């Protein structure tokens, strides 16, 4: 037998405690599923149906045609057609419209007098990424409008450069294809860590740790015994998430599932041992769980490359990204799903993850040894 009797005893006790607490057990599997479903279905970053209002002071066929273009695009939804500035400003102020379009009285006259005809757009900048999206949508719509306005027989005099855009790995540019595999990485980062973060500190708070201190069990046996049950839960969660990715979200899988499974086994080991380390370092359950949540949950979304690629981050953020295990696994999981890449590409990532595991487990062991000694 690979594991000693003492180690197995610790693991069995931990499993018993988990299984006995029915609410906790159902939450342990239910929470990641809920988060996965919620974010997977709802997290669209596409800014569609932007509510807008228009003040059309021109009321000509041309101005109406322009407004119709906005109304008929999927990007915008018209809320009001106004005569006055006041309600427009108030709508922007309380946030129920994000864009106000103002077409001046001489819009159509200017259009055919050989001068550019100006329209004004007031954009709510409170959400900068949405403001940027509104700007680029408006740009596209006016460009198309100008193109269709062109007089018959008009040919652009100057040179034209066409850009053929092509997106590799995700040709439809569907955001769920990057969000769903990304969620596997973020979920398996914070969740196993959080579960493991109470393993040791609970015994410290209740005082039963002293039984361990004076028993013949070796520190590494105790830690590994504590680690294994949570490692197992995290690993089982991975299969649940992978099943959902396939059957519910229909995410293409291009790599080797065996490779991804093995890499995940290592990764979940890293994240559980991170939680266990926090459990050893802190004295109360609240502190251990809170710090684990803080260092895993939000960084997992901000620095891991979940939304934007690591090379395009600022230099400070890049340093943070490289300090987090989730960044290395994010590449692996997206590579396996979308790029069809495996061990030949990602062996350095595996080595780094192994390093994290050794560091977290080793640090935990050192702290625990001090106490025992």
């Amino acid at each position: 037998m690979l594991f000693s009797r003492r180690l197995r005893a610790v693991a069995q006790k931990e499993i018993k405690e988990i299984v006995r607490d029915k609410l906790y057990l159902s939450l342990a599997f239910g929470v990641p599923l809920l988060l996965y479903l919620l974010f997977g279905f709802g997290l669209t970053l596409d800014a569609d149906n932007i509510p807008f209002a228009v003040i059309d002071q021109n009321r000509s066929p041309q101005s109406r045609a322009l407004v119709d273009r906005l109304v008929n695009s999927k990007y915008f939804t018209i809320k009001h057609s106004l005569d006055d500035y006041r309600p427009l400003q108030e709508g922007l102020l309380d946030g129920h419209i994000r864009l106000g379009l103002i077409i001046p009285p001489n819009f159509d006259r200017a259009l055919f007098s050989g001068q550019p005809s100006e329209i004004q757009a007031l954009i709510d900048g409170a959400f900068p990424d949405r403001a940027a999206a509104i700007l680029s949508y408006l740009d596209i719509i006016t460009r198309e409008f100008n193109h269709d306005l062109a007089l018959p027989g008009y040919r652009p005099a100057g040179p034209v450069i066409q850009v053929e855009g092509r997106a590799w790995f995700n040709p439809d540019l569907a955001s769920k294809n990057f969000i769903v595999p990304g969620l596997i990485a973020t979920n398996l980062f914070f969740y196993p860590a959080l579960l493991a973060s109470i393993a040791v500190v609970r015994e410290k708070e209740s005082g039963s740790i002293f039984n361990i201190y004076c028993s013949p069990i070796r520190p590494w046996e105790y830690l590994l015994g504590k680690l294994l049950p949570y490692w197992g839960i995290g690993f089982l969660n991975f299969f649940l998430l992978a099943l959902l990715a396939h059957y519910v979200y229909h995410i293409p899988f291009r790599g080797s599932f065996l490779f991804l499974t093995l890499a995940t086994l290592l990764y979940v080991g890293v994240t559980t041992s991170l939680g266990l380390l926090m459990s050893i370092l802190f004295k109360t359950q609240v502190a251990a769980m809170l710090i684990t949540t803080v260092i895993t949950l939000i960084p997992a979304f901000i620095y891991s490359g979940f939304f934007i690629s690591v090379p395009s981050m600022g230099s400070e953020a890049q340093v943070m990204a490289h300090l987090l295990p989730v960044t290395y696994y994010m590449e692996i999981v997206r590579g396996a799903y979308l790029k069809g890449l495996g061990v030949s590409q990602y062996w350095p990532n595996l080595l780094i993850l192994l390093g994290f595991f050794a560091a977290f487990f080793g640090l935990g062991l050192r702290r625990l040894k001090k106490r025992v000694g």
Partner: protein
Amino acid sequence: MLARLGALLRKEYLQFFRDKSLIYIVLYVFTIEIYLAGTGFNIEVRNYPTAIYDMDRTQWSLQLAEKFRLPYFRVDHLISTDAEMVDLLNRGVVSLVLVIPHGFARSLAQKNQAAIQAVTDGTLSNTSLLALGYTDQIAADFAQELGQRLGTVNPKKENLQPQVVLKPRVLYNPNMKGEWFASLIELFSVITLVSLLLPAAAMVREKEYGTIEQLLVTPVRPVEIMSAKIISMASIVLTSSLFSLFLIIFPVFDLPWRGSLTLFFGATALYVFCATGFGMFIATICRNLPQTILLVIMIIAPILFLSGSWTPIEAMPPVLAVITYLSPLKHYLNIGYNILLKGAGLRALWPDFVNLSLIGFGLFALCALQFRRHFS
């Protein structure tokens, strides 16, 4: 009654300040964490890692390549083979490869038109789309510039074509700074997390140790125990958010506060009471701390998600958009943003205040009911 409440409050503060590491964590999340989130989060295309694959190597292709520069594109690879392109995109080192084919300049000179390719790494589709948009614009601008230089485009003559010109103005955040948005979102999320978790943890601990039984045999009433926890934890959260605003968000990120700070703190107090009430409710259901924190996370995720902070509410399916009214954060977020960034007042924001109060009182009543059933 006041004397009893005072004694209970003293006990709560003493217990909180005894756990040194907890104090550090709370300080950390309200300062450094907010700073990191503010600087780190940026969905726009900046420093987009780009490679140029110039097969043409003419004056014009070089000039076009030069247009791809900071702050939008960071060109740090000039490549000359397909294999390099595949490798760079596979490894994720670059996210865009601009391919200028052979005969680009010749085609422009002879036929007045040419094509280039923009190959992006589609794994992050949101930024890929923006990058392709920018590429389009750069190509169009370059063509225009070239036309003017060659004299084929006469700016005056071209303007005889009917043309609409858009004059956009971005209000409230004219430079579209990501820090303002991200730091406030982070503050609101942290307030939510801490105000749900701290009182719930304080309460569950009493249940785990059995000290709640000792309290119940004293003359204090259950409602007083509940109120003491809510008041003490809410005051800690409120003080910490002051730190966060005056140490980080206002001075470091130059966030202008345009509206009434008093109104903003009123709303914050209302929101914190709402959330601590919710936390107490959770505590009545749970028997130990691990259960509590899992339940808190299960509840906080929908609250954050339905608030419209990350996903615009208008883009959600209609059913979901209606459910968002239940998320107290949705109303608080609207109030906070509109007061701080837009200078809005009560006149524009009263519906959000009404909704927030309704949710708050609902939760409070629920919590008091549950508390009475549990402990009397």
